[in-house]
């Protein structure tokens, strides 16, 4: 436990990813099994139970600490676990002291098998034995609140780096492929990463398959686009998912391999391997039921009517905002599910009915996928259709027409080489994304804050505002899009134009205008301005433009579509 607490404490403060990786690898090298595997699990967030509730901590602390001092301390520290970790004191009738600090595996095992009363006793003994920073790590771990700036994705990368040092064949894709099929403390996996033993065999389990990614389409690529070589599809505005169903199980994964099945029981629980058996690549989108006479459908009927329910109702794609209501919900309520229905637009197939299609060309895979699709009846599955075009100019017109009209639904185009096999990672020359042109507005710099990590000495995080009468209302924050030179110039400008501060935030003269690029804009009642933008970034600094000529909120609202 000491080594784990020490690691967690260091990771918590470090900004640099390199340093985090070094610390983690050092820990993996010097810590035995199963200890290190439990640590990996704790950091990756794959421990599937809470040792104790916050209430248990509170109940145990009361009586040990003067309540006035506790409240004053809690006010100052601002956080329960840390306050308790500093204030904890042994009490008279406590259970006998532990002889030594138990291992992490021992702690996890004991809590897992204990009942409420036994766990309260054990927690007391542990808190008596540990020092303040170890207590903090324990309390955070035990309440599943261990947030130390290390994502599961990052941890897997570090595991791959660690493994490569012992065995050059180890890849991140290997780890991602087996990750969801194995359980902590990951002894098989770590043994393999140490260079002893084989990659765990997961062929009889449902697992995430690493996905194929696209490059942005630049002019050089676009000039080679011909309809017989490339297939064009809409790039829908949802989230990339992988649907996996077989006799071994069923799951829905995000593009990084996180199992998100629990958020979408309306999809996953309706799947049965007799009717659907394979691994599918697609876009999870919000759905909207529309009256057929709705003018929205008339305009671009072929894209948006993805399914006709009957002669009066059709299903179309809903806004990303609607989809967002469904993301990261551990247990979505029936009400939420029916208010925000979702579906998947399938656009590729890695396995079908037990056959691995990844070595086939895209056209063949799509042929297999669509012939299976026509026979299935799941109402929440849709098929991405190809877009017919004669040449680049025509494709370009289609793209700008559609994306201009309906920014909710389409992010642009995907262009895929018809002969491409399915290759995990980002292979060159196969898939391209041709995003729609960003929307642009002029906004005024309102506040600035220092950046993180390498940028921590620069003012690089900005809040922008637009006019609402005589007043500026904040509309978005942006931290990217500028060159290093521009960043230096902005930093200098902030230092010379600071008029006040609130903690780390500098209030600046409302005189500098930047052109902000963003992908789409939605109504939002969580923001004072009434709108929320996706992916805002600084497109250009308008040193020349007077602040009063920046956009108004009214103008912004006109960009909201749908």
């Amino acid at each position, binding site marked *: 436990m000491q080594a784990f607490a020490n690691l967690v404490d260091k990771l918590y403060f470090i900004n*640099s990813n390199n340093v985090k990786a070094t610390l983690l690898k050092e820990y993996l090298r010097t810590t035995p099994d199963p200890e290190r595997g439990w640590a990996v699990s704790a950091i990756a967030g794959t421990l599937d139970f809470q040792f104790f509730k916050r209430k248990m901590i509170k109940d145990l602390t009361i009586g040990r600490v003067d309540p006035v001092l506790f409240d004053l301390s809690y006010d100052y520290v601002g956080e329960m676990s840390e306050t308790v970790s500093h204030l904890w004191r042994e009490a008279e009738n406590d259970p006998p002291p532990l002889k030594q600090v138990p291992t992490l595996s021992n702690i996890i095992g004991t809590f897992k098998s204990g009942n409420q009363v036994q766990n309260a006793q054990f927690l007391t003994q542990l808190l008596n034995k540990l020092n303040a920073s170890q207590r903090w790590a324990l309390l955070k771990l035990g309440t599943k609140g261990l947030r130390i700036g290390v994502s599961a994705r990052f941890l897997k990368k570090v595991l791959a780096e660690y493994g490569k040092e012992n065995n050059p064949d180890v890849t991140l894709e290997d780890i991602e492929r087996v990750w969801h099929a194995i359980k902590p403390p990951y002894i098989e996996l770590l043994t393999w990463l140490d260079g002893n033993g084989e990659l765990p065999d997961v062929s009889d389990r449902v697992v995430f398959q690493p996905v194929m990614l696209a490059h942005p389409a630049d002019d050089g690529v676009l000039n080679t686009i011909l309809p017989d070589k490339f297939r064009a599809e809409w790039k829908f505005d949802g989230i990339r998912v992988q649907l996996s169903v077989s006799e071994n199980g069923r799951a829905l994964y995000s593009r990084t391999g996180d199992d998100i099945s629990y958020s979408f029981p309306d999809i996953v629980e309706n799947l049965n391997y007799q009717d659907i058996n394979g691994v599918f690549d697609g876009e999870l989108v919000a759905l909207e039921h529309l009256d057929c006479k709705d003018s929205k459908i008339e305009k671009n009927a072929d894209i948006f009517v993805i399914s006709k329910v009957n002669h009066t109702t059709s299903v179309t794609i809903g806004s990303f905002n609607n989809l967002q209501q469904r993301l990261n919900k551990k247990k979505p309520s029936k009400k939420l599910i029916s208010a925000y229905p979702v579906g998947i637009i399938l656009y590729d197939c890695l396995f079908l009915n037990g056959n691995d299609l990844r070595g086939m060309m895209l056209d063949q895979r799509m042929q297999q996928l669509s012939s299976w699709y026509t026979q299935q009846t799941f109402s929440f599955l849709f098929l991405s259709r190809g877009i017919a075009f004669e040449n680049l100019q025509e494709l370009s017109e289609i793209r700008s027409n559609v994306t201009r009209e309906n920014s909710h639904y389409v992010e642009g185009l995907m262009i895929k080489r018809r002969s491409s096999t399915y290759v995990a990672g980002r292979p060159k020359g196969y898939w391209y994304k041709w995003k729609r042109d960003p929307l642009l507005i002029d906004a005024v710099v309102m506040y600035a804050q220092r950046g993180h990590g390498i940028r*921590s*000495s620069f003012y690089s995080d900005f809040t922008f505002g637009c006019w609402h009468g005589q007043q500026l209302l904040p509309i978005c924050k942006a931290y990217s899009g500028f060159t290093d030179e521009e960043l230096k110039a902005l930093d200098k400008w902030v230092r010379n134009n600071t008029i006040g501060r609130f903690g780390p935030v500098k209030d600046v003269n409302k005189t500098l205008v930047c052109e902000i690029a963003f992908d789409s804009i939605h109504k939002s009642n969580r923001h004072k301005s009434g709108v929320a933008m996706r992916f805002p970034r600084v497109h250009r600094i308008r040193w020349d433009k007077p602040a009063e000529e920046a956009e108004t909120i009214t103008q912004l609202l006109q960009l909201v579509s749908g």
Partner: protein
Amino acid sequence: MKAHPQTWLRSDKNGLYCKPLAAYIDPVTPVQRAIITHGHADHARPGHSEVYATPQTLDIMRIRYGDDFCERSVPMAYSEEKVLGEGTLRFAPAGHILGSAQAVIEACDYRVVVSGDYKRHFDPTCTAFDVVKCDVFISEATFGLPVFTHPPIEREMQKLLDSLALFPQRCHLVGVYALGKCQRVIIALRELNYTKPIYIHGALINLCKYYETQGMILGELIPVSSVENTKTLAGEIVLAPPSALNDRWSRKLPNVMTCMASGWMQIRARSKQRRAELPLIISDHADWNELIQTLQDINPDELWVTHGREEALVHFAKTLGFKAKALSLVGYEEDANS
């Protein structure tokens, strides 16, 4: 004539005023007669007519503000006693920084001790705190919450050396307050056998030189400004005032690991606020246990609490059976030299 200190010792907009001695203790604005407990800028300000302080505190004020920091300075070594107006003044060591003192005031048949800033942890850069029995003890309370328990400095400095061993390519930039903390950190490193040169920011040079004249051995110190190629500072320890940590000055340093030496580093949110990647809990103030210990050692009739987190200390002193109250003083910076 016997008169309770509450009738002749009170705070006003200038600071704490002692009527029988016609003097302010650590006033925040220029006054006629000032008693200065130590050289930190929020306690020792320039522009007073007359200043009573230890010789080291006067030296420090001279270094910081120039020779004309006051009209007349009166040096008083520890335990030297002076009649001042209708009372007497002497200084007792406070263990906070070099020259730091408690002001021991006797007047109207009462003895009052004003602690200034103090600590009880061992510190080779200054004389240890002296327990002076008194009727009223006026204590600071910068770290006056039970969440503050300062670890031994060796343990914190070992953390720094361990990090240096694990990340030999990173320049370890340590934020230290220029007066006291800086020199204490250097000596602690030397005691752990760190013999390499230590690189220092320009703002630290003069006070380090002064500590050396007072007999402290700091080893080889090299101003960062004299290093031709700052890339060579990878793997070295660089000390700088906290304000320089995230500022332009630090950009020229290679591959920086930001460390911060302060008692506030005990609290995670405070460390994050400072962007300290390696927080070092090193304080020149009494932690909670030392505050309570001192109160019990002195065992005064009354405790008055000045700057810091008065509320918790006053509350706890009362539960221990002391008469206690908070004296609200203005103008002391919580985060200035802690």
